[in-house]
């Protein structure tokens, strides 16, 4: 009998190949006669292209072809899957033709016999630019006097949108206090460890195009590229080998993916392109990018009465797949974990001469959580309340779920008090505050930051998604009893090869090692949506579970036939007569032991009642098909296309404790505590891993990371020597725990945890630093909070305070 694995922190089955360097990424694909592509990218943020001369580049030995915007006119536009009424959609051609719109905008592509010649040829392409003034600031971009990027629109405003419910004006009127604050969520670069990469191969005889690409959405990418290239979708095979991280940046369809496919068809050779880190920072999507103005009304006792968020959202120069939709997610989550009767978000989305923004871990929700959590702290500061008490005051009670927000959502389940209480206990919050008082008397700057967050996961019901919110799974039990799962999800670091195998192992009574999870090849796997929005387990995993239920129904019928009984029950991998017991002295050994080839002699004969038959025996019978019930088809396989009925809403409490060096403004972590509730956990080790990574990325945003363009739109933080990612040595010990409030939305009770850390941690970190500086009257500091910023605050205020 296989031991149950769900709920246990078993080691990731993916890791041995990753750790040993045996995994295969796009760059490991090497095909005979393969050519290499390199992109010439704009050095200007905004310029008219007067002439592109490729003559010299074409003469370089090894160069096969050079294509410009004029050559690639027949390739369809890079798609945007999101629609907002009255939004302006600039046509996004794969190569710039008349104008360049951002530093890194591809202008030409060289295809050569090797990557060195391809790169050398870029220096020989002569582009004559007429430089135009750049639009860099997302707020100023909306100004009528600003230069216009897409001239056909006569404005840089991509769309305006008002969202939310309730009478915000009345709520503000009813408030005792109204607090306003400008809040920035600066641009961030996702920086997956593996940059993007594509290999394309075309077989003219079969008219079949194969694309290997590093993506989170193999099927959606296939559909899009097929449309862009005019290749029948069923003649385009898209393979996603190992993907070295995405964080949302590969939840997209990029110009390069179509160009590579096209170049392979043009040249008749396979073509490879692997993005460099500098390209990655210039021309892979960025995240965040909001200049916001929050206004919150509250009663004297801390009760929130209304929230308004006016925001300028930076689109960049074009829409990528979901660019315009990201701010709408911010609007949905503005209520946080609080009962706020009236909420309004007014978005002004603007075009700027920068790379497009799009989904980056959390995608719009970290922005919302940051805004509402900062607002909750501002309420506490204004009223002189403990920030924890303000939060408690506004929490819905556990029995109020499903809880409807003024942003139009129904939170599935929650116990916000439970997670908060647990975190406070772990932190020994009362003592922390006492210690802080003592420290302040000694002139030390100690800060405690608390954030209570809720987020939206398991994206999502199809009605709320641009291109389907369901997920698919096929589960097969092979003749030898091995289990194969084909998932439409596209794991790229989350560990779903392990967690899906755990679900199947427990449901089918087999060992995790006997389960293989296949994903990311559109020729093998049925259509699927992909991995993003913390949906892998809570949608894709549920699809696996559903398929298994179908499979077990069929297997049960076949088992009943084999056992010559009316009905069977199933446990520990064995079927027995419905009123019998699977365990006992009469249980026979499996007829076909694992690892041995099935022989005709090993065929299980129909057995009289009281006996059992294993799932492996049933699978073999189903495939040999010597004795099946009437009307039963051979084989043992089932597919589910699972449509979730709602999102799920994980939540938690994060607490950061910091001390600031008075002389230098440097921030030292004393402690970091997180209690996350992602519903039922399939594998707590994977949960911890996700929370760890999320918190670290949060620290990046809170303290270090910022994509900086100068006034001319030049990317200043264009390498990892300038753009500061948090390193292991910069991270404090993380004290993690969890509560478990199952989701009623799906039978696994799972909610998703991929983005929780990124969402919950940022406000806690900022809050801790602000709290440390509160003796100076400080209530808010914009991210990233650099030591110099802190030092300037201390310097300016030292004379009169603390």
């Amino acid at each position, binding site marked *: 009998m296989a031991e149950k694995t769900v709920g246990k922190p078993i080691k990731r089955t993916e890791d041995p190949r990753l750790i040993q360097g045996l995994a295969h990424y796009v760059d490991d694909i090497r095909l005979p006669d393969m050519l290499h592509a390199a992109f010439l990218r704009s050095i200007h943020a905004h310029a008219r292209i007067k002439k592109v001369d490729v003559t010299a580049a074409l003469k370089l030995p090894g160069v096969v072809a050079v294509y410009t915007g004029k050559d690639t006119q027949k390739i369809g536009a890079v798609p945007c899957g999101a629609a907002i009424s009255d939004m302006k959609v600039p046509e996004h051609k794969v190569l710039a033709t008349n104008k360049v719109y951002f530093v890194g905008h591809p202008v030409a592509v060289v295809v050569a016999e090797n*990557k060195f010649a391809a790169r050398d040829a870029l220096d020989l392409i002569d582009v004559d630019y007429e430089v135009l003034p750049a639009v860099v600031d997302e707020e100023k971009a909306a100004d009528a006097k600003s230069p216009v990027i897409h001239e056909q629109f006569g404005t840089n405003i991509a769309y305006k949108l008002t969202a939310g419910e309730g009478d915000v004006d009345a709520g503000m009127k009813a408030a005792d206090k109204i607090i306003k604050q400008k809040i920035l969520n600066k641009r961030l670069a996702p920086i997956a460890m593996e940059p993007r990469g594509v290999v394309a191969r075309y077989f003219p005889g079969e008219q079949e195009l194969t694309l290997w690409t590093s993506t989170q959405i193999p099927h959606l990418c296939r559909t899009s590229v097929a449309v862009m290239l005019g290749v029948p979708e069923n003649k385009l095979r898209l393979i996603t080998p190992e993907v070295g991280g995405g964080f949302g940046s590969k939840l997209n369809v990029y110009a390069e993916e179509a160009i590579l496919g096209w170049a392979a068809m043009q040249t008749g050779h396979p073509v490879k392109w692997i993005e*460099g880190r500098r390209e990655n920072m210039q021309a892979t999507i960025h995240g965040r990018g909001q200049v916001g103005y929050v206004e919150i009304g509250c009663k004297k006792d801390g009760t929130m009465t209304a929230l308004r968020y006016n925001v300028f959202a930076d689109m960049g120069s074009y829409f990528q797949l979901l660019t315009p939709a990201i701010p709408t997610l911010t609007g949905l989550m503005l209520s946080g974990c609080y009962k706020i009767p009236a909420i309004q978000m007014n978005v002004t989305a603007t075009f700027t001469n920068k790379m497009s923004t799009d989904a980056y871990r959390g995608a719009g929700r970290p922005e919302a959580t940051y805004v509402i959590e900062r607002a909750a702290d501002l309420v506490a500061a204004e009223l002189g309340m403990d920030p924890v008490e303000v939060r408690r005051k506004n929490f819905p009670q556990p029995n109020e779920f499903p809880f409807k927000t003024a942003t139009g959502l129904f939170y599935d389940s929650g116990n916000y008090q439970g997670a908060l209480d647990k975190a406070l206990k772990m932190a020994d919050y009362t003592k922390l505050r006492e210690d802080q008082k003592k420290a302040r008397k000694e002139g030390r700057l100690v800060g405690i930051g608390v954030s209570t967050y809720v987020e939206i996961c398991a994206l999502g019901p199809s009605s709320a998604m641009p291109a389907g919110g369901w997920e698919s799974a096929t589960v097969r039990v092979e003749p030898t009893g091995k289990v194969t799962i084909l998932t439409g999800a596209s794991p790229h670091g989350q560990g779903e090869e392990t967690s899906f195998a755990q679900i199947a192992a427990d449901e089918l009574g087999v060992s995790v090692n006997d389960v293989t999870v296949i994903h990311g090849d559109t020729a093998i796997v049925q259509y699927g949506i992909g991995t993003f929005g913390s949906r892998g387990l809570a949608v894709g995993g549920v699809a696996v579970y559903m398929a298994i239920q179908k499979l077990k129904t069929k297997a049960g019928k076949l088992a009943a036939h084999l056992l010559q009984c009316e009905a069977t029950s199933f446990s520990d991998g064995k079927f027995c007569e419905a009123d019998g017991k699977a365990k006992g002295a009469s249980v026979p050994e499996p007829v076909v032991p694992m690892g041995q080839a099935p022989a005709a002699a090993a065929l299980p004969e129909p057995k009289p009642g009281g006996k059992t038959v294993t799932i492996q025996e049933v699978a073999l019978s189903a495939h040999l098909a010597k004795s099946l019930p009437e009307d039963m088809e051979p084989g043992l396989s089932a597919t589910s296309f699972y449509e979730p009925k709602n999102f799920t809403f994980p939540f938690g409490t994060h607490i950061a404790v910091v001390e600031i060096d008075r002389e*230098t403004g440097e921030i030292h972590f004393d402690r970091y505590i997180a209690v996350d509730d992602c519903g039922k956990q399939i594998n707590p080790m994977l949960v911890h891993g996700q929370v760890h990574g999320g918190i670290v990325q949060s620290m990046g945003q809170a303290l270090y990371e910022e994509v*900086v363009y100068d006034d001319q739109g030049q990317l200043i*933080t264009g390498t990892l020597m*300038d753009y500061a990612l948090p*390193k292991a040595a*910069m991270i404090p010990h993380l004290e993690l725990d969890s509560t478990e409030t199952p989701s009623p939305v799906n039978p696994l009770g799972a909610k998703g945890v991929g983005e929780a850390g990124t969402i919950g941690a940022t406000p806690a970190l900022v809050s801790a630093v602000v709290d440390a500086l509160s003796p100076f009257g400080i209530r808010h500091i914009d991210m990233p909070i*650099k030591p110099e910023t802190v030092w300037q605050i201390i310097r300016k205020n030292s004379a009169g305070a603390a």
Partner: protein
Amino acid sequence: MIPASFDYIAAKTLDDAISLLSKHKDDAKILAGGHSLLPAMKLRLMQPKVLIDLSRIKDLSYIKEEGGQIRIGAMTTHFEVEISDILRRACPLLPETASHLGDMQVRNKGTIGGSLVHSDPAADWPAAILALDAELVAKSAKGDRVIKASDFFVEMLTTALEPGEVLREIRIPAGKGKVGQAYVKVRHPASGFAVVGVAVNLSIDSGKCQSAGIGITGVSPKAYRAAKVESALKGNALDANTLGAAAAHAADGVDVNSDLYASADYRKQLAAVYTRRALETAASRIK
């Protein structure tokens, strides 16, 4: 991230390298670890036609005591400096500096000589070399030339080396009296280079500071000796007030860098604070 094409020559001896250098002149760059040169080439900020690699030359990598000095071969890696028993005993400032330098990969491949000759204004070694009043031995077709550390760093990315010269050895004078040393650093969160790096080499005799070497990197376009800090220490007992007052002069008389991470004002503050902390640590280690 692909460099322009170049020829690679592995020199077998130092004389071989010197003659190759005189043959290829400005077309050539010396490869001495490559952890600054290769990234610059990959970004095509540098496009040398010839790389002359010193890594195969056996007698350029050593740490030994000779003639009242510690002598370090230019091709000694940062890691070899970090773990050297001789240095930990006789000049712990160098292993301490090495431990702050780059990351494990850089320390395993990068060399002390390569770093010094590159003269990056935020590199760690220049601070230590200045504080120790080291001598740098350059060799050319004309023979050896000894350059004092204080003359070596001319400006950003420029040293006193003449065309045709190759740095072959770093010589550290043995400390006199009771010595205390320290290297402290504010790491840039992205690059790991020094926003401010302060190397201190103090000696005392009869309770008074006999000599003080203070090398500071990251603060100005080239690493420098903080002469005013040194003179405020010499001849005085190293009490807290003296150290604090001396450290306040850390950035006196230099052009202070300003960038996205730290303005000139803030750098000055960091220089003063970290100089004081380095002095305190060094003073506490005097034995």
